[in-house]
């Protein structure tokens, strides 16, 4: 299948899943499922940062529009992650490796390094999301608690999705 068609299908799938399923899950104040972050982690390592940001912007904007929340919140967090993703990959891999790696994954990165990578990506997204949502440092620990709870769940969900549906065979 053509790469861009695959990206668009993935885009729609994750968007619909987030809007119809995860937005309606009521898991309490401290856990907010947002596995859509996976979308950005499935692009090839050498994909340009500018293109990543535009994808993230489009995704975030649509999500903000259709969920009855605050406009621009998901967008801002997702664009921030898109901007930092490639730098993170560069920092976590050896220089020679990067050309051989197609998409970040368990096999390509090694299990431990990939889990750490997903954790850091989710953390970047969540720090922007939860602190922008709060917009103050008042109740800092409460915001941090929400961040930590969601971080654990979403890292787990993303790893699960990746392992189940997007693992490339060698």
């Amino acid at each position, binding site marked *: 299948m053509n790469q861009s068609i695959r990206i668009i299908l993935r885009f729609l799938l994750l968007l619909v899943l987030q809007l*119809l399923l995860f937005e*309606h899950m*009521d*898991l*309490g*104040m401290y856990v*907010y499922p947002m596995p859509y972050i996976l979308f950005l982690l499935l692009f090839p390592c050498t994909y*340009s*940062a*500018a293109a990543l*940001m*535009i994808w993230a*912007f489009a995704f*975030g*904007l649509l999500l*903000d*529009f*259709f969920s*009855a*929340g*605050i*406009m*621009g*919140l998901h*967008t*801002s967090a997702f*664009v*921030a992650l898109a*901007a930092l993703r490639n730098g993170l990959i560069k920092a976590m891999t050896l220089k020679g490796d990067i050309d051989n790696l197609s998409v970040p994954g368990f096999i390509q990165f090694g299990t431990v390094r990939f889990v750490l990578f997903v954790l850091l990506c989710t953390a970047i997204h969540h720090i922007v999301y939860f602190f*922008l*949502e*709060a917009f103050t440092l*008042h*109740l800092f620990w*409460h915001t941090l608690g929400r961040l930590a709870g969601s971080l654990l769940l979403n890292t787990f969900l993303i790893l699960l999705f990746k392992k189940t549906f997007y693992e490339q065979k060698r």
Partner: protein
Amino acid sequence: MAGLPYLLRKILVLLLFLALQTVAIVLMVNNSYFQQNAILQVVRKWQTSAWERRSSWIAFKNLRTLNDALSQENAALKEELARLSLLEHSLLAKKEIPTSIPDTFSFIPARVIRNSVNHRHNHLVIDKGLADGVRPDMGVIGSGGIAGVVSYAAENHALVISLLNTQQRFTAEHKETGTFGTLRWNGVHYKKIQLSEIPQHTKVTKGDTIISSPFSLIFPDGIPLGTVLSQSQKRGTSLELEIELFLDFKTLRYVQVVSRVKEKELQQIKQKEEEAL
């Protein structure tokens, strides 16, 4: 873009990042509930039908608790009816029938088809809209207190800013002393809300009732909202009370939109006041 020198490429990417972030932040700060919904009229139509189906299923699961709440409310209403009819009889006996009853509100019953409690900015969507007389800035009450205020009304549904929204302020007063303050949620727990700007000399004890204030023009006054849990001083000048709400937003299914009959006159007075300032 591959032909450009490295530095220039980096700068372009940075500029793109800043541009996209600016758009996102501007959208967030403008907080355009109205535009957002106006654009989405068409989508909201099928979205609401999906929300409705889901909420009716959940409502079915909660029928028992709902029944209990309704019977309690019924009892309270009957009590009030009895009290009022007694009053009416005594007035009739004196033949001093008032020519008009001053402030009257009418209530539009509605069903909540979408609700959230675990964000900082929560919203409700209800199944009544312009066609049923719902207008923006009308109050919404549930059985057990204020639920929110209508921010946008479409033909057959309306978006309500929940009481559980850190950006929305309401007015409420301490029943025992009549002191009023600002009611605003701090975003932590869906059963606890904060009433601030209460003067320091006010004598507040735990368990006191907080009611809606007559100074808020969109709600009838005297609706019990909750009880005082604790109090603390803020900036040495005023008290902040923590209130436990009577209304449980997690099981909120039926609400009433409050429409003020003489709303137009009030608006005119308010406008004149603003012009005078």
